Structures are given as structure tokens and as C-alpha cells.
């Protein structure tokens, strides 16, 4: 073989090798892409399935407190023509502030028979209690208090004893003790708190509030319209 022929042969070999490498890259790219898309689709479906499972669990554990109003999502106070809906989380400091600043006005409006107040205890701040889910536990305890006919009193005492955000929250023993301080001395209340009887309900109410467009707490609605000016004066003006 001449030198030139040898060179040509080597050249041809190199080209073939290059083509093979390119083909390999194409094949690898194709199949890894298919794999990636499959992984992402499956991941999304897993998320959906996990959520569906959780919702099914919640649905199975909903015990609606006997005294609940507004489709079983709230506890009413007063009997006036104007409806005020208050969505509150017992862990939410701004809800506490609202209660402190507008609470007396609300009581006055209730006493004057101008308003019916629907309190919706929802649990959107479970992440702020180190995994003890204080928002859900306290909302469930409030429902138990409502079953005992003491929602409003218990609601007041929960805010008065509000734990710091990102603490463990109040434990069940303390929730029961606070109940006793407002006259919830029966075993039924203590059992409902300890067994988390109404926690599924609290989760369900939170879900329904979100579906109704509530994206944070406190959300105050006056006759269905969200109150922008959440001061005592703003509330009074909206009620008219």
C-alpha cells in the first residue's frame, strides 16, 4: 500500500468513527429526553395523587359541629340584617390586632342588632408552629367550644393567649385549660380537643374558604364584599 492510500484509509476510519459518535449522541439524547419527560409527568401525577389521597382522608374525617352556620363553615353571633364574615387563624397576629382594634365595635354592632357575624376559624398558618399544627388544633378546639355553646368566649381567650408565630403554639392541655376558664368544664370538650374531633372540619373549612377566594387572614367581608379598610371606623362605615 502506498503512503497516500494509507492516509485515505485512516481518514475514512476517522470519518466512520465520527459518524458513529454522532449517532450515539443522537440516540442517547433521544432516549434520555424521553426518560426525562416521563419522569416529570410521573412526578406531577404523584403530586396530584398524593393531594387526592389527602383530600379523601380529610373528607372522611369531617365532623361538622352541631352549632355551625353558613353551610357548616362558621359560627354566628348576633342577628342583624348586615352579614359580616370574618376569616381568622388563631396563630395570625394581624387577626389578633384586628380583634383588639375592631372587636369592641363588632360587639356594639351585634348589641344594636345591626349585624350577624360569621366567624370562620381557618388554618392557613400550620407551618408557623414547628409541626404541631397549632392553627388546625386551635380551630378544631374552637369548634369544640362552639359545640359547647361557648364559641365567642373561647375565641376571645384564644386571642388573649395567642402564642408567638414559629413557636410550638399552645398544647392541647393548655387549650383545654383555656376552655375551662370560660366554662367549658365538661369532658366532651376535653375529649374533642384531645381526639382532634373537629380538625378534619377545620381543614375542610379552610379549603372552602380558599375556594371562596380567601387568600389570607384576616379576611373580612361585609355582605360578601371584602373590607379593604380593616379599622373599626372602616368596618362601621361599610356596615352603614
Amino acid at each position, binding site marked *: 500500500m502506498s503512503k497516500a492510500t494509507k492516509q485515505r484509509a485512516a481518514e475514512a476510519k476517522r470519518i466512520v468513527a465520527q459518524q458513529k459518535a454522532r449517532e450515539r449522541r443522537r440516540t442517547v439524547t433521544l432516549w*434520555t*429526553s424521553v426518560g426525562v419527560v416521563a419522569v416529570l409527568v410521573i412526578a406531577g401525577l404523584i403530586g396530584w395523587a398524593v393531594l387526592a389521597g389527602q383530600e379523601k382522608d380529610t373528607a372522611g374525617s369531617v365532623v361538622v359541629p352541631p352549632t355551625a352556620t353558613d353551610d357548616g363553615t362558621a359560627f354566628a353571633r348576633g342577628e342583624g340584617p348586615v352579614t359580616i364574615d370574618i376569616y381568622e387563624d388563631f396563630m395570625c397576629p394581624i387577626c389578633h390586632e384586628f380583634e383588639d382594634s375592631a372587636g369592641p365595635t363588632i360587639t356594639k354592632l351585634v348589641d344594636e342588632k345591626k349585624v350577624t357575624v360569621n366567624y370562620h376559624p381557618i388554618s392557613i398558618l400550620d407551618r408557623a408552629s414547628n409541626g404541631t399544627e397549632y392553627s388546625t388544633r386551635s380551630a378544631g378546639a374552637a369548634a369544640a367550644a362552639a359545640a359547647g355553646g361557648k364559641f365567642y368566649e373561647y375565641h376571645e381567650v384564644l386571642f388573649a393567649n395567642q402564642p408567638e408565630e414559629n413557636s410550638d403554639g399552645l398544647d392541647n392541655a393548655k387549650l383545654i385549660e383555656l376552655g375551662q376558664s370560660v366554662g367549658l368544664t365538661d369532658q366532651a370538650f376535653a375529649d374533642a380537643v384531645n381526639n382532634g374531633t373537629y380538625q378534619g372540619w377545620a381543614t375542610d373549612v379552610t379549603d372552602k374558604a380558599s375556594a371562596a377566594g380567601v387568600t389570607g387572614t384576616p379576611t373580612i367581608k361585609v355582605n360578601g364584599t371584602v373590607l379593604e379598610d380593616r379599622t373599626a371606623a372602616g368596618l362601621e362605615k361599610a356596615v352603614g
Partner: protein
Amino acid sequence: MQPWISTAARVGLAVVWLVAGGLKIGDLAASGRAVNAYQIFPYDVAKVIGAAQPFLEIALGLLLLAGLAVRLVAGISAVVLVIFIAGIVSAWVRGLSIDCGCFSSGGQLGAGATPVYGWDIARDAGFLVLAGVLLVWPRTRMSVDSILMGDDK
């Protein structure tokens, strides 16, 4: 020099996705509420997006960490980041007062808190740069791609 820059971008973006997904996966209902707070989708749709999102983020993170189909995963990451940025811009423009829910469960901000949309967007844009590097130079060291392609020898 180059394969190492891309390798760093790949691992960096992987960590971003893993952290973002990991912080949300424990409370899917809250993740759904965070999506709902943008007031773009009906709640039922927002719930499904919120539930799927953390799993998708973790999947993207694991795929990047493994280095599988890096260019495609970087491209998908870029598209997702652009969607996130668009969502934040839209919340900003509409004057919503929400936490972006990027690395948390999000939701509406309290009365005293001010949203930091500018920072959120800048941060997502930074992640977008990482994805861009990988789109242009997808070849990285210590990746499944490089083993399959026969690069690492």
C-alpha cells in the same frame, strides 16, 4: 475551564429546585393556596398545580443532579422560571400583596409586610442565567450524560 462552569451551574440549579420543592412538599394544601393567592387560576386548578409543583421541582433537581438530558432539563427549567417571573410580575402589576411562595408556602402578606417582588424577580432571573449557561453549554463533568455519550475518559 468550561465543563466546570457548566458543572457548577448544573449543581447550583439542582440545589435551587431541591430546596424549593422540599420546602413545599410537606404541606400540599398550603402550596395550592400559594398558587391560589396569585388569583390567576380557579381554586380547583390552583390546588392541582400547587400539589404537582413541589414534586416537579424535586424531579427537576434530581435530574440535574444526575446530569441526565441536561440541555432539555435546563430548557424546561428556563420555561418554568419564566412562568414564575411572569406570575410575580402579574401579581405586582395587579397590586396584590402576596408572598411569592417561591421558597415557602406563600399566601397573602400581613397588613404591615411589604412584598419584595423586585428581589423575587431578580433571584429568579439569576436562576434563569444558570439555566441559560446549561442551555448553551450542556456538557458537564460527572454527569450521566457524559458517561452515556462516552465523554469522560
